[in-house]
């Protein structure tokens, strides 16, 4: 009678012990992973350190993940962006591209030594054309991002600083604009004011300021509680002076990040509009125009016409958002755990 009993107690204590140590190891694992995330190296990799013998469980990260990756993202993103920008400025210039010169003797040539990525259906070299398109797209995007950020920041600052009915009204307007899909509103604007750069810029800027307005407003609302604002008000500053002198400078970093984060959106929006034939005028070879023109060519088997522009578009978008995400993580650390890039 006694034997199985003792045996079972021994067994259970053994199990309990095993569980205990496993629990401790797990905790260590979590701590270790946290340390790794902070230090970047990872104590798990150091020789002589204890390694977790426990079964891996869901949700415990590898020790390797850490700030090394963020650094890599920053370097790779920045370098790619620099290369693309240099290419966009220099290549069309060095190659002597004139978008309006067509060469019907060299239509839809496949990639060769002379034309590295082939020619489009009007005989223009695709390397030069795609980089020229990237330049147009990036310029339009920067313009839109700046306009919508400035507009959004002003609306957000006014809304947050004035409060009351103005605030409520402005936020309802923001809600209403957000209730219409942005591309659709953009299409309506572009359709009615067709065929100019202004229409495209307006269509993008008018639909994208709402995000910035929200961010700036919430920032202003939280800044209003700070002692230095109280001090300024007690010192007799007017509302306008408080806004200009204390609130606006404090929201500049946030607004600048939003501007950079808006860039990929703006590129995306412009490209989509041009692709649908509603965007920039056809003689401006933006990426969207090239892709839109190349759509029928794809059906004829000329896949190379859309390859390079698409790759450039995707790489540029990713590079911009990579740089922007790193910047945001440095400036606003509490958002690090949220969706990056």
């Amino acid at each position: 009678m006694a034997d199985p009993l003792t045996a079972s107690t021994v067994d259970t204590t053994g199990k309990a012990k095993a569980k205990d140590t496993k629990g401790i190891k797990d905790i260590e694992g979590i701590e270790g992973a946290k340390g790794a995330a902070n230090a970047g190296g990872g104590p798990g990799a150091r020789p002589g350190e204890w390694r977790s013998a426990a079964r891996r469980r869901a949700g415990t990260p590898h020790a390797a993940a850490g700030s090394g990756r963020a650094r890599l993202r920053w370097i790779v993103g920045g370098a790619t962006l620099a290369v693309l920008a240099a290419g966009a400025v220099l290549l069309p210039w060095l190659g002597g591209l004139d978008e309006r010169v067509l060469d019907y003797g060299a239509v839809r040539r496949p990639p060769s030594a002379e034309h590295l990525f082939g020619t489009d259906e009007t005989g223009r070299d695709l390397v030069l054309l795609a980089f020229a398109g990237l330049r147009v797209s990036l310029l339009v995007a920067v313009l839109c991002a700046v306009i919508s950020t400035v507009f959004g920041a002003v609306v957000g600052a006014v809304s947050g600083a004035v409060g009351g009915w103005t605030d409520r009204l402005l936020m309802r307007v923001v809600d209403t604009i957000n209730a219409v899909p942005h591309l659709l509103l953009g299409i309506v604007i572009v359709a009615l004011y067709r065929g100019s750069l202004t229409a495209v810029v307006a269509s993008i800027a008018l639909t994208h300021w709402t995000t910035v307005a929200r961010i700036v407003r919430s920032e202003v609302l939280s800044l209003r509680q700070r002692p230095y604002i109280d001090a300024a008000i007690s010192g007799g500053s007017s509302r306008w002076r408080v806004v200009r002198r204390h609130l606006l400078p404090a929201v500049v970093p946030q607004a600048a990040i939003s501007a950079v984060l808006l860039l990929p959106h703006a590129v995306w929006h412009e490209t989509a509009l041009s692709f649908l034939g509603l965007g920039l005028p056809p003689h401006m070879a933006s990426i969207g125009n090239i892709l839109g023109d190349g759509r029928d060519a794809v059906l004829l088997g000329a896949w190379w016409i859309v390859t390079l522009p698409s790759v450039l578009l995707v790489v540029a978008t990713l590079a911009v958002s990579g740089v922007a995400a790193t910047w945001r993580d440095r400036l606003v650390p509490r958002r690090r755990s949220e969706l990056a890039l």
Partner: protein
Amino acid sequence: MAGRRLLFAVPVLALVSAAVFALGALSPFDPVKQYYGVQIFNASREDVDRVRAELGVDDPVIVQFGRWAGGLLTGDPGHSRSFRQPVADVVGERLPWTLLLVGVALAVAVLVALLLGVAAAWRQGGWLDRVVTAVGHALEGVPPFVLALGAIAVFALGLGWLPVAGLTDAGAEASAGQVARHLVLPALVLGVSQSPWLVLHVRQSLLSALAEDHVTGARARGLAERVVVLRHALPTALLPFVTLVGARVPELVTGAVLVEEVFSWPGVASAVVKAALSVDFPLLAALTLLATVAVLLGSLLADVASALLDPRVATDG
């Protein structure tokens, strides 16, 4: 709650229709010139004046808006010039196809998100997680039309597995088999282009759910890993996911516009492009309002769903 939210939708819709109409009224576009096209140079002065009077373009803007809004309310949103059909007929004919496409795409996106997101969070830092995260971030930067062109080039032209575009083969009846074969590519492209946000969100919220106390408690009670993840962590992680799916409706509409256009899918979203290219104001305005209704409905349904799923969610606000 639903009643209050529906009440909120009324001013939004009124504001959107007024704004769209104002955009139309302010634009340099002239409906009479469009009515005539090139023949305006041959038309006699009296004819043009008669058409102007019939179309009512010389009335004050507010009168025109009243006429148009009244038409909308009584169920007559006008006549589409680009389709040469009443707007109501255009929408009625095309809406089911769009709903089919968007529904299937959304199902694909949600399914992909749940499977990959859970798998990635389960083994955080493993090879699957790294692949899913990297591909997800990369796909966020790929516009749907690039994805669609790539899919056409590879699956339709390269491999020849699926048809290039359209609803049926040329001249064929719209039978279930035909439509299903033509639906695969657009629905997959739309679903995949929508999935990265959902996948990354499921992964992230499952990871934070795994760090919560009740999951530690489940582990302390010695439950199997599968039970801990799927029964204890996943349900808490899915609550914000429902809201996210509702909030993604605008992107879904945007994606539908691009995908339908590339695949010549005969839905309302590709009608937007056609209406815009030929400045067909009545159709364009009606479709914009339709999209707004879809967005409001999406967020309303998501809120109702999350209130039903979680009794702690305030049912008013």
